[in-house]
């Protein structure tokens, strides 16, 4: 436990603790506002919401005043923070002395945590690229005209739950795990455990094809390729299955394809995590050039 307190109180980790609190607060605030609006809309009083949005006020003083107060408050917080807490400075850079564990800056620890489950070319290159591209693609994939300009939950359940899952579970929680629960050798340590650099971890991971008794690497190659293709093919199957629903019709084939690919790629991470925890799966698809 002292170990956790020690990591928590490291100057560089204070922002993470602050971030967790802030995200908790703002999620609550969103939920409160969404409940209010949903109740209003549910009662058929969307017009009132609209009317409120049409109501104009002067920027000076009503907005400028708030901005000014926010700026002053923020500068006070920042000043106190900078007086009380010193930025870390460790020993001079030494390329011959690798610290254990070596960690990326905290905002990238989610990506570093993904390295446990995927090889660097996926966790370090493909996933970051897909995150950026996927975020950019959101406005072009979301065809739901409702919930534009006000907090809601009822009208955008799929969009919001997907975003919250990706943001909280696959980004914020992974940052938390990477920062606070990963010790020497990037081994997992419970918060109350001491970081033992000599912790013994059994190497029991196997590849998926080994579960099926496949020993030949060529057969394993085609087997793994089939499994991965089949996973992404579920998107195609879903498309033909739900072809006549409002949701798929509105999207069209191209949009649906992009969305299904991004969604399945995202869900690949939690699926692989669960497979690792339950079946000790190392790789799904082993090839001479890359492993997935």
């Amino acid at each position, binding site marked *: 436990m002292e170990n956790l307190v020690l990591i928590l109180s490291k100057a560089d980790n204070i*922002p993470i603790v*602050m*971030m967790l609190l*802030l995200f908790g607060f*703002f999620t609550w*605030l*969103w939920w409160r506002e969404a409940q209010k609006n949903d109740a209003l809309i549910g009662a058929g009083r969307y017009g009132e*919401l*609209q009317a409120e*949005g*049409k*109501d*104009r*006020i*002067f*920027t*000076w003083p*009503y907005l*400028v005043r708030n901005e000014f107060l*926010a700026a002053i408050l*923020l500068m006070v917080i*920042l*000043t106190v923070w900078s*007086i009380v807490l010193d*930025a*870390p*400075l*460790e*020993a*001079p*850079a*030494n*390329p011959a002395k690798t610290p254990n564990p*070596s*960690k990326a*800056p905290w*905002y*990238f620890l989610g*990506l570093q945590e993904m390295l446990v489950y995927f090889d*660097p*070319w996926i966790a*370090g*290159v493909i996933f970051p690229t897909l995150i*950026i591209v996927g*975020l*950019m693609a*959101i*406005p*072009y994939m*979301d065809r739901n*005209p409702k*919930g*534009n*300009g*006000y907090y*809601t939950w009822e009208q*955008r359940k799929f969009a919001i739950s997907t975003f919250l899952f990706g*943001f909280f579970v696959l980004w914020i929680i992974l940052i938390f795990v990477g920062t606070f629960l990963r010790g020497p050798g990037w081994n997992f340590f419970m918060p109350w455990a001491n970081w033992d650099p000599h912790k013994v971890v059994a190497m029991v991971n196997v590849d998926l094809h080994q579960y099926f008794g496949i020993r030949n690497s060529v057969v394993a190659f085609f087997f793994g390729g089939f499994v991965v293709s089949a996973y992404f093919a579920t998107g195609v199957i879903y498309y033909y299955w739900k072809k006549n629903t409002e949701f798929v019709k509105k999207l069209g084939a191209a949009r649906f394809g992009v969305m299904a690919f991004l969604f399945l790629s995202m869900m690949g991470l939690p699926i692989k995590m669960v497979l690792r925890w339950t079946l000790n799966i190392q790789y799904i698809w082993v090839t001479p*050039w*890359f492993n997935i």
Partner: protein
Amino acid sequence: MQAFFNKMKDSVTKTQVWKSMFRHGYEDTPRNRYLQVLDNVWLHLHPTRIPRHGAYIRFTWCMGGITFLLFLVTAVTGVLLMFYYRPTAEYAFNDMKYLEFDVPFGMFLRNMHRWAAHGMVIAVWLHMFRVFLTGSYKPPREFNWVVGVILLTVTLLLSFTGYLLPWDQLSIWAVTVGTNMARATPLLGHEGPFGPELGMRPDNDVRFVLLGGTQVGPPTLLRFYVLHCIFFPLFLAVFIAVHFWRVRKDGGISGPL
């Protein structure tokens, strides 16, 4: 007494110099409220009137503005830090010690730069969170969301390149871990899928370009310094301009349609 103060005031505000700087008075009239915003180079980023909820902190969370303010703080403190810091392996770490122990308010300056940078990362995430939850990326604001994602990425890159500059164990190894990913880039990294087949080696792949060497060394320090102090801030400033411009052009703050 009153007359005396009024006379004093007039002797300042009725001069040609004063009038050349401040075009209108301060009387609380609707006309002046418009002019306060229109005539001010900083405030004219705003429309003169906004929807009522645009001034509610429970709606905007104020996070876009806070992100921008924190960017300005890092820019100002960053320029001051540049006076004392030399981006070479010989001097960088010593200059950090110099800032800490010798430069008046040096440590305060560095602290403020670092905490504002961390705060900016959090604020930009919260801003994205708010914009998503209000559905403000929906038409006609799709493109501004894309610009926002670019700004978010550049914010992280700015923070990451700055992380190396103290040139201590923390920074060099964090950046080593981060940039090691580049060697696994498909096609372009020497450990990435089909990289070796395309002739990628540790001394010619994309990571080599990024680091200016095969490991994080003095050339990397200079490279990250230039990226951190010149390239990314300018890049960010350009896209901030586009972002703010588009907020106005796409109809101001979002609201129920």
